[in-house]
Structure formats: C-alpha cells, structure tokens
C-alpha cells in the first residue's frame, strides 16, 4: 500500500476563497493509500515547505501531492523540498486547484468538489510514479552565432571574452549588418561607423572567434550541448588566404554600373567588389550574376569574356573556378542574430499577407526614398559624400516630408506591430537634414511619437523645439509628382484640416521585417516564428533571449523590431546564457523523456515521422555474431522534449514518456 501525503494550499485567499481547503484535505485523507493530509495558508512559504518535509519524515511517505497552483509555478519548489527530505523529487507532483479551479469558478460547493477530484486524480498518478534521475549530457563548449550584425558581433565577442570559442557565420561578404549603413545614431548622434567598425575588427581578430563570412547555415542536427552544424561557404571567387585587400581588381573591373546593395541602390559598385571600404574581412567577392565572365560561361561561351580582375591581381588571388565548400562545426549552443530587412513599399510584395502602398509611387517617383536610403545620403561615406542631395537631379532638397508608420501599425497592409525604431530615427533624420541644409524645412507626418527609452523623449523633443522640425499628426493619402516637386496630400488631425505640401523629397519610415529565409533557418533549428516570421522567445518576459529549443538563443531584430541598445543588451544576455550553459561540463536535464521498449518495437518508425524535435533515431539490434536482427526506434534523451507525440502515435504502445506513462495517466483519468 502506498503512503501518499496530500498537502492542500489556500494560496492566501486565491484558493481558500472559493475552495474549502480543509474539506479537501479531509476528503483526500480518507482515500486508500493516503497516509497524511493537511492544509495550510501558504504552502510555498518556508513554514509550508517545512510541513512537507516533516510529513515525509514522520509519516514515512513514498509520494507527495501538493494541491495548489500550477506546476509551472511551484513544481520545482516542492520537488526541491521533497528531495531535501530524502525523497526522489519525481515522486512529488502538483494538483492545480488554482488556475484550473478556484480562479475560474464561483460556487464554493462545486469548486471544492472539483478540487477534491483533481487532487484525487494526481494521488492515483503519484501512486504509480517511479523514482527518476536527471539525465546528464556532455557539452561541446563552443558556440555558433548566426548573423554578423551588431547583435551577432556583440554576442560573439562576449562569449569569446568569456573564454569560449565562437564560430560567427555571416551570409554577406562582410560583417557589420545594417548598423554599418547608418550615418549617425540616436539619441547621441555618434557616428555609427566609428562605434561599430572597431567592434568588427575586434571580432575578426579575436583568437576565440572564427569568422565565416559569405557563408550560410546549411543544416543543423543534434541537441543542446551537442549540435552539429553544416555551413555552406559560398564561393567568393577570391582566395581569402592570398588576397590582401589592395582593391586593384575592383579598379580593373569594367562593369561598374551595378546598383550597390550597401548604398541601397543609390550608389554603384563593380562586379568584383567589397561592399564598403571598411568591410571585414576586406576581401572582395565576385557577383557572378553580373560578372561578364560568369555570364558568358553560363551562356556556354568557350572563351572567357573578361578576366581583367585576375590580370590586375598581383597575388593571384582571383580564382574563377572556386566552388562552394562545406564545413561542419560542433557547437553546444547557437545564437540566432539574423536581424531585419525593410518592408518594401511598392506593390510587389513577397507574400499575399502583405500589401504595398501603390499610392506612394515608391520606385516610380525617384525622390521618394526609404529610411535606409536617407541614412546613406546622410552618411559621410555614402554616395553623395554626406551631402543631402536628391536622387533625381542631384539638387539639394529644401523641403523634405518624412512619413512615419509606413507598413507598421497598419493591419490593412499586413503588419499590425510597431516597428519601434522609426519615431527615433525620423527625429534624427530631421536633425541631420537641418544640420546639413540650414534653410531646409523638415515635415513629419506621424501617428504618435513613441520615444520610450533613455534620453529618447528628450531627443524627439529637441528635433521639434530646437531643430525646427514640423510635426503633423496624421496620415498621407498619396504622393503625386508634379513637375520637379512631390505633392504630399495629407491630413493634419490636430487642426482638422487637409494639408498639401510641395516637397522636394519624401522619406518613408518603412516597417522592420525579419530577414528573408528566417523561416527556413528556424525550421533547421527547430525554433518557432510568429505570424510575421520573427523568432519566438521562450517567454516574453522571463525568458526573452531563449527559444523553445534548448540551447538555441536569440538576439536582436530577428526576434522583434529592436534598436541598437536593445540588440546589444539582448546579445549580451544571450551570451551570458551561453556562458552559463558552458560553465558546466555536463548538462542536467529533466528525465521526463520518451523511452522505447526495444523488445516490442516493430520498427514502423511512425514515432520518427511525428517527432517535432528529430529526437527519434534508428538503432540496429544485432545478435552476438553481429547478425542484424532488427532495426528499432530509440529516443535521444538529449533532444527529446517530452511532448509525448510518439507515445500517442506508437501503434504497439511501446513508447512511454517517463513520468507520464499510460498507466499513470489512465489511473489519473479513472479517478476523476
């Protein structure tokens, strides 16, 4: 006969108000196999826990049921208490009579009855609980950081400074991300390049960081502490070991008319190029889609159409025959920091969920540009050398209208969320513009000014009060090109009047969206994305840098729109989580994982197909002579998250989830 102890908590008034806890204890005490039953006002408090420990010792209990709040709240607390009293922690369980009962019912009689039933079910389950011990897994103490923007750089540096190796993967030819494109940063107006490029160089030169630029994650297998990541190293067509970054090849390239991605299409680059002069690594890459030689080869020309870059290179670094290669790295943790892209304003949209603004003429009116393009115009290293000149005729615009919330906060366009950074950067843009064009007029159409952050509100006020930006609360219905000007038809909701402004240039503060391909990457890592493709954190408040896959962390704008300080803070948070994980040689995990009974397994592998975590593996069973008898499923305890899908799927009932066996669950249900 079992000797179960039942401890009923009042949770102050939370449970006690609707559930008669004393009667629950009395009713449970009468059950066969229950050796002890008591109630107490705050069971999770120190004296409450003492009651649990005393009961275990005095009544020689072999199982404990705490009828209180959700196990998510206090299961760990009570299991720890039981363990300190010498009982196996997994013999202690909670019956949730708060969220599942007292909080949602009004009738005291009914609620008490339900609480008794819930507790009785768990008593029956605990009678069948087996002592379990935590699983221990060795950890590969090296981290993979995906994305070399400011978040990825920060995470990589922090982990490397903590003494652990880092592999930093960046898909572009250079690290630096979007921050390298920015001119000056809010709210201090310090130069983006000046604060970023030293960090880029530091990351590149750090002995603990291995930078794989122009590379992408091909596949990921394994689990926390033991990931195996295959990285595709895209062919640069330039030998990284030979190139010294002299730039002769770029000068020699005859095709210099390609719109530069780094300059957001406002500048041009050659077919062999370094994205920007401060690129890290400072090694060019051949854009094969635009290179005459590769285009010729694709057409089947026998003779190479051009090899000027190769001829110009003094170090024989240009290699037209380079192919993509693959490297496999073993890591214990992954930080995803893939950043963002801007919502495209035009009618062409990447998915049906999004709609563009045809009425703004983006793409057809050359002087309608987006925020990143304005950053390039304002940047000292930009296509205009830091002069604000409009793209159509190179003249200095005397009147610029900035439109906020383009895409953002507009469910009709498919994006309900606030992109968070636009209010601040628009305020910054008006200042940068006024600093460079003293007689210029900056108008801003806004919905609200959201300037929550240290020094942010002051900064936004400064744009209005000291720098003369004219803020108009309202939306713009359309942009119309009339002669050399752009007529901005808007509505000022504060004065209640329609406004028409003849602008020389219009800047659209477009929404932040996750990078293309984020969903494919998330799938490789078994992490989930929200409806917009942003990576889901494990808990929005308490676990913001973890994902729901153990060992995979998230930092920066791939999780939600983030500004630089947020991204850096998140990156450091993720890095400290990684270092915390790496502070142990082995990893301890909850033993609530699936176990296959190999004698009964028929090898149908339904479980393998349904497992969302890829935890089911195949195992060969051989006799002593090494003859293969059968192939069975086996669960990798490191990967299994204990969801139980395999258990429900197994046609021969040969998979059991430890701690949640069929026997336990059926006993609990029968007791209801």
């Amino acid at each position, binding site marked *: 006969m079992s000797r179960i102890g039942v401890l009923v908590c009042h949770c102050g008034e939370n449970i006690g108000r609707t559930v008669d806890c004393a009667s629950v204890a009395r009713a449970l005490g009468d059950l066969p196999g229950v050796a002890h039953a008591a109630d107490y006002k705050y069971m999770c408090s120190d004296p409450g826990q003492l009651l649990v420990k005393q009961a275990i010792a005095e009544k020689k209990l072999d199982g404990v049921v705490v009828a209180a709040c959700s196990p998510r709240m206090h299961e760990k607390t009570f299991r720890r208490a039981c363990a300190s009293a010498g009982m196996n922690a997994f013999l202690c369980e909670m019956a949730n009579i708060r969220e599942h009962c007292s909080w949602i019912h009004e009738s005291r009689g009914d609620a008490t009855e339900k609480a008794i039933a819930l507790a009785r079910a768990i008593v029956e389950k605990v009678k069948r609980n087996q002592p379990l011990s935590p699983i221990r897994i060795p950890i590969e103490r090296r981290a993979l950081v995906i994305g070399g923007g400011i978040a990825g750089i920060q995470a990589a540096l922090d982990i490397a400074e903590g003494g652990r190796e880092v592999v930093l993967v960046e898909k572009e030819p250079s690290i630096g991300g979007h921050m390298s494109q920015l001119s000056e940063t809010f709210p201090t107006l310090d130069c983006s390049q000046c604060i970023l490029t030293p960090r880029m160089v530091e990351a590149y030169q750090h002995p603990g960081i291995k930078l794989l630029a122009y590379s992408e994650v091909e596949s990921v297998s394994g689990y926390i502490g033991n990931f195996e990541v295959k990285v595709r190293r895209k062919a640069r067509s330039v030998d990284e070991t030979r190139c010294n970054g002299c730039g002769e090849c770029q000068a020699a390239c005859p095709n210099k008319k390609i719109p530069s991605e780094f300059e957001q299409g406002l500048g041009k680059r050659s077919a062999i190029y370094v994205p920007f002069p401060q690129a890290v690594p400072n090694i060019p890459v051949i854009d094969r889609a635009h290179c005459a030689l590769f285009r010729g080869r694709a057409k089947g020309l026998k003779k190479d159409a051009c090899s000027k870059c190769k001829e110009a290179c003094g170090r024989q670094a240009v290699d037209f025959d380079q192919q993509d290669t693959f490297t496999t790295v073993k890591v214990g943790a992954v930080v995803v920091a893939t950043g963002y892209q801007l919502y495209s304003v035009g*009618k062409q949209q990447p998915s049906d969920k999004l*709609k563009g*603004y*045809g*009425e703004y003429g983006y793409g057809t009116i050359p002087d309608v540009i987006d925020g990143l393009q304005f950053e390039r115009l304002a940047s000292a290293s930009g296509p205009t050398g830091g002069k604000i000149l409009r793209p159509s005729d190179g003249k200095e615009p005397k009147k610029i209208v900035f439109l906020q919330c383009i895409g953002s906060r507009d469910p*009709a366009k498919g994006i309900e969320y606030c992109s968070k950074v636009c209010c601040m950067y628009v305020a910054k843009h008006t200042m940068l513009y006024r600093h460079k064009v003293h007689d210029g007029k900056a108008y801003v159409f806004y919905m609200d000014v959201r300037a929550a952050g240290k020094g942010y509100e002051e900064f936004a006020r400064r744009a209005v009060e000291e720098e003369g930006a004219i803020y108009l609360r309202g939306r713009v219905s*359309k942009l*119309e090109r*009339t002669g050399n000007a752009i*007529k901005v038809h808007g509505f000022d909701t504060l004065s209640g009047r329609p406004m028409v402004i003849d602008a020389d240039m219009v800047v659209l503060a477009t929404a932040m969206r996750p990078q293309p391909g984020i969903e494919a990457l998330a799938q490789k890592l078994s992490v989930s994305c929200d409806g917009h493709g942003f990576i889901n954190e494990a808990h929005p408040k308490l676990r913001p840098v973890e994902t729901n896959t153990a060992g995979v962390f998230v930092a920066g704008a791939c999780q939600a729109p983030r500004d630089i300080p947020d991204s850096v803070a998140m990156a450091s948070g993720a890095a400290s989580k990684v270092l915390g994980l790496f502070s142990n040689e082995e990893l301890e995990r909850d033993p609530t994982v699936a176990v296959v009974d190999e004698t009964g397994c028929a090898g149908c592998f339904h479980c393998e197909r349904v497992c969302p975590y890829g935890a089911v593996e195949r195992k060969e069973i051989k006799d002593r002579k090494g003859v293969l008898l059968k192939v069975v499923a086996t669960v990798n305890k490191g990967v299994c998250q204990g969801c139980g899908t395999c258990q429900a799927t197994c046609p021969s009932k040969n998979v059991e989830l430890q701690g949640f066996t069929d026997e336990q669950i059926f006993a609990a249900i029968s007791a209801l």
Partner: protein
Amino acid sequence: MKLGYFPGCSLHSTAKEFDLSLKAVAGPLDVELEEIHDWSCCGSSSAHATDHLLSIALAARNLSLAEQQGLSQVMAPCAACFSRLATARHEMAHDEEQAELVRPMLARPFKNAVEVQNVVALLQGLAGRIKAKATPLTGLKVACYYGCLLVRPPEVAQFDDPEDPTSMEQVVAATGATAVRWSRRLDCCGAGFSLSRVGSVVRLGRAILEDAKASGAQAVVVACPMCHSNLDLRQSAMEARRASLGLPILFLTQLVGLALKLDPASLGLERHFVSAVGVMRALAAPAPQQLPATRG
C-alpha cells in the same frame, strides 16, 4: 457568357449612353445580358443615407430576384449600384443579425448565391477578346478615372488594388489607346452633391480634369454615371474664367465600342455635354507621318 444585368436608374436616364454602349459592345464580345425582371432601386443615395436596413433590403431584393431567375452573376454597370449590391451581399453573408431582419422582407427564398460584378471587371476579363477584335485606337491618350466606389471599400468591392488600381488601364491597353499616368484617378468627384453643393463639385472636378489635361489626356474614361455627370455636365462651370478644358468624358464601354468600330450613334456618343467630336476626328485622321505627300 450569360450575365444578369442590373441597369439601375441612371442607365435608364442620365447615363442612357452607358446602357446603349454596354449593349452595343456585348454582342461582339459574346456577352448575353439578361435584365433582372422587375428590378427596383439599388438602395443608393436617399435610402442608404436615411435607413441602413432599407438600403440593404432594397439591394437584397434585386439579388433575390436574380437568384429566382437562375442567374449566378449580376453585373451592375453603375458604380453606386455595384457598391450597394456588393454591400448587401457582403452584409447578408457576414452580419447574421442583419440578415435575419432582411430575409422576411424579401418575400422569396434568398441564398445569397449571386455574385456581383462591375463593368470594369467584366471588360478586364474580356481584354483578350477586345484586343483580338479591336482596330487599335492608336495615338489616343485617355485618363482612366475610377472615382470612389469601384474599388472601395476593399472588403466589399473585392476588386483591384483600392489605392492603385490598374484594371481600367488594362482595358484601355486592349483598345490600343494609351492610358496616361496621372495622380487624381481616385479623387472624389463630389458625387451626390451635384445639385446641392455645385461649388464643391466644380472645385473637385476642376482639380481632377486639370490634372488629366496636364498629363496629356485627350479624354477621360469613367465607369460611373455619377462621375460622368459631374465631370461632363459641370465642365463648363469649371472652365468659367479659366483655361478651357474641353475634355470629353467617355464611358469605358464607349471607348471599347469605338475600338470595335461600332457606329458612334449606337454608343450614344452624341449625348455628352462636352462633345466627343474632337476625339472622333483625331481617331479618324490618319497619323501625320502616314499622310500622303502634300498636293501640288
């Protein structure tokens, strides 16, 4: 292709030429129009401004008649009729409470199974056929004017991009004419205020037509009787003490009819206040470079 036809009051009166030209082009384009028997007011203007329930019930009555007639689609050329019928269909499908109030008023079974179409969508679908049969209206520059109700509200109209539509331009392209790029394609024409606030209608219409003119258009193409009457009837008032506009306002069906070489009289082209003769002449005259060498 057989379609239910809901002319509405305008097409039997002020926009008679819309009705004429639609029927004229229907034949060559293999479209059979079957008028809804005993159709009544669509619920526009007076009804929907005074009693929402009445406006839905009136439109739903017409849809139920079409259903009774075994029609699966009803085409309402007038943009206001289209909007009312589409609104009724939308609300009867999405607002069960409202639908329960309306159903008993209809006095006949109603399954809400009839699709509502506008004339632009119809012609857009027939663009290939138009192009095949048309003698291209090469050299004619027109401005496509949508007004408000054809594409809005988007959840009701379920047609084209509400802020940057292109369907009319596609039809114009099929006729061989050129649709100019201009900005006021979706601006308000003043609609029902044509009689009560003439000043506003003139001011709004002038802005529209001046922009069309500045964009190089020789005519404006519309698909709404209300837009048509405001821009056509009030054009002389818009020109008062200003530069002359002289922009004929054509229904889209008339333009298609011209491309199909139909008799201008059968298209009602002589019924406009602003004469379309100029446009006709421009089309009749061969392009200058094709002129024979000058006499003598």
